């Protein structure tokens, strides 16, 4: 069987599995729809969270990014895992104890204010939409490259699948499909990594292979790659080029942003007890770390393989994968010196670089570059789709619950019945799928950039409001609202200025304290904390019933299941 037949078979089989699970786990109440009935086991929730969290960006792009950034890529590895420590220690158990359905629910009740609720709804919808458009695009790329269908048709197929199980099953359907999707994606990521590790270093465990010896040369792999980099005029792989302060701020923004993303937080409402919320964060990070500790190994294998298989090779003798990716425009060769050979060199070399490789294709192209069997390549396509679809579904649920629960039920039309609310939730999910699909087919040029900035925005808005809501009883409505507004406005303004208003000035010389727009969310978060704390001390303290609520959140006993409540 050839690559395309394998891809088709594996993708179709995985889709059939997801649909089967969706039919089996239909939602019959709003509680099923929002929090999967509240009875998910911590282990299953950990897996679902891992799939929810690991998007097309983690599966398809991250190893490629690290491959080209070397040490600087560490910001993603530490940033996207360290946030779970904050989530486990500072957020998940308390939000579970509070037991609402959504994040704006908590913000609105804790800050006894409809305005705070609405601000939170707007932040949640904005963050989720920017994120989901990127996922749909990922679906389109995988279809386009491996099944050779049009990108738009690919997005359409992805939309239909997500529509089916998110609208029908709500959180319940999403949770159990995500468990299956985690299994598919981790298998798809590990198999090629193990193959590559065996081929290059002779050990089957990629995490050890990374610190091992390259068999062909007998030199430690990382030393060998640093050597190749030196030869070709790239900076050393294991040292960075970004300033230490910037790396520090970007890592912090990604960590705090992770802990503040609504689609991750709501996953911890689905378990029965506070204790389960704590341990399921642990399971989630364990499952995530399997991919995240493998990715840097894949990055190094891919980098070494790429350099070895293209550098100084005559263009007439390039392998088949090279030509295929050239067709997509994601890999381009321009014979600057006219010698018919590929010169792939870095900025410090005296020669001109002739090859441009899009970072996003490294994971997808890797098995082909290494000549792995056809079924492995098909598996990678199925894994990429699982990663993109699972994250898209989680985000769509946040959008639909923000509309049907926070906006309709809790703000505009409190008298609607549960049946009507469930219908509204399904309609909102349906509309959200269509909007997301539209952006996937017609991506505004800035989607990719905005996705990275969603973290900064989440860090500078939600995180301080939730933390202070739990850890400081004195935090008032006025403080939280002004804090959220000033944090997100400052962060958004800095990002918009350097990316859209004055892009020429977007370099370290003009940045404040040398902090790039990617890392500015950390400063926005600090500003939010400062504003909230100062204003809270200047305004009347929160009503007694809110202080009682905070006391209750702090003690695990009596969590019950996630439910609706009014104070």
């Amino acid at each position: 069987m050839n690559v395309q037949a394998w891809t088709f078979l594996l993708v179709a089989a995985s889709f059939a599995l997801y649909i089967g699970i969706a039919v089996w786990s239909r939602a019959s109440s709003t509680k099923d729809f929002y929090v999967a009935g509240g009875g998910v086991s911590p282990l299953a929730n950990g897996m679902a969270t891992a799939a929810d969290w690991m998007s097309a960006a983690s599966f398809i792009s991250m190893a490629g990014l690290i491959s080209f950034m070397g040490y600087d890529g560490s910001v993603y590895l530490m940033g996207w895992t360290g946030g779970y420590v904050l989530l486990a220690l500072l957020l998940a158990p308390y939000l579970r104890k509070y037991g609402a359905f959504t994040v704006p629910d908590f913000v609105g009740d804790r800050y006894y204010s409809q305005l705070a609720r609405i601000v939170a709804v707007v932040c949640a919808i904005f963050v989720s939409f920017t994120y989901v458009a990127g996922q749909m695009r990922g679906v389109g790329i995988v279809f386009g490259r491996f099944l050779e269908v049009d990108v738009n048709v690919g997005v359409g197929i992805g939309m239909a699948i997500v529509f089916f199980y998110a609208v029908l099953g709500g959180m319940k359907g999403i949770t159990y499909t995500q468990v299956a999707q985690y299994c598919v994606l981790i298998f798809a990521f590990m198999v090629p990594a193990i193959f590559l590790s065996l081929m290059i270093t002779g050990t089957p465990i990629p995490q050890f292979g990374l610190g091992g010896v390259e068999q062909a040369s007998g030199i430690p792999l990382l030393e060998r790659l640093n050597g190749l980099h030196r030869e070709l005029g790239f900076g050393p792989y294991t040292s960075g080029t970004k300033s230490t302060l910037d790396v520090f701020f970007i890592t912090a923004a990604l960590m705090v942003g992770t802990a503040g993303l609504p689609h991750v937080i709501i996953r911890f409402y689905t378990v029965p007890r506070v204790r389960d919320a704590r341990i399921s964060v642990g399971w989630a990070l364990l499952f995530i770390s399997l991919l995240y500790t493998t990715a840097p190994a894949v990055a190094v294998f891919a980098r070494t393989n790429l350099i070895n298989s293209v550098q100084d090779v005559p263009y007439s003798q390039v392998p088949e994968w090279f030509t295929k990716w050239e067709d997509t425009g994601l890999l381009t060769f321009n014979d600057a010196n006219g010698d018919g050979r590929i010169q792939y060199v870095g900025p410090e070399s005296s020669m001109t670089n002739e090859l441009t490789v899009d970072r996003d294709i490294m994971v997808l192209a890797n098995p082909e570059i290494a000549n792995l069997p056809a079924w492995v390549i098909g598996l990678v396509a199925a894994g990429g789709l699982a990663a993109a679809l699972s994250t898209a579904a989680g985000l769509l649920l946040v959008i639909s619950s923000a509309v049907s629960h926070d906006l309709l039920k809790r703000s505009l039309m409190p008298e609607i019945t549960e049946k009507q609310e469930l219908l509204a939730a399904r309609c909102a999910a349906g509309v959200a799928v269509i909007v997301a699909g539209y952006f996937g087919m017609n991506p505004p040029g800035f989607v990719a950039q905005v996705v990275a900035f969603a973290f900064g925005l989440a860090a500078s808005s939600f995180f301080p409001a939730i933390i202070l809501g739990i850890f400081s009883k004195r935090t008032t409505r006025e403080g939280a609202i002004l804090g959220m507004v000033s944090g997100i406005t400052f962060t958004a303004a800095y990002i918009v200025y350097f990316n859209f208003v004055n892009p020429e000035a977007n370099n370290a010389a003009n940045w404040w304290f040398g902090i790039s727009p990617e890392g500015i969310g950390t400063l926005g978060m600090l500003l939010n904390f400062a504003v909230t704390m100062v204003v809270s001390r200047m305004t009347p303290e929160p009503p007694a019933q809110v202080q009682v609520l905070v006391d209750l959140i702090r003690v695990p006993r009596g969590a019950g299941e996630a439910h609706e409540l009014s104070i």
Partner: protein
Amino acid sequence: MTEASEHSHADERPSVTDPETVARHAEYWRRNIRLLGMLLVVWFVVSYLCGIVFAEALNAFTLPFTNFPLGFWFAQQGAIYAFVILIFVYVKLMNDLDREFDVDEGASS
């Protein structure tokens, strides 16, 4: 498990008016904050200090029995392992603390 006992948090207010319970909960919270503080120090040291601030300096060493430059290893492997361990340690210590202060979920009446 405590099913069906509360449908509204507002019904649970009695528990916070009893002075002995209030004092116990306050002490529980103080101990919780201390535990969080200690774990977050470790979190900060493995990632921000070993993986970022001192990474270049640590790269002069290699991780024993491997060929990893040490700072690079912390940034791309070690910090992540430490995060996973931290959460499981937190879960264990916190569940113990819950039981010690009689606020765990298993034994409620």
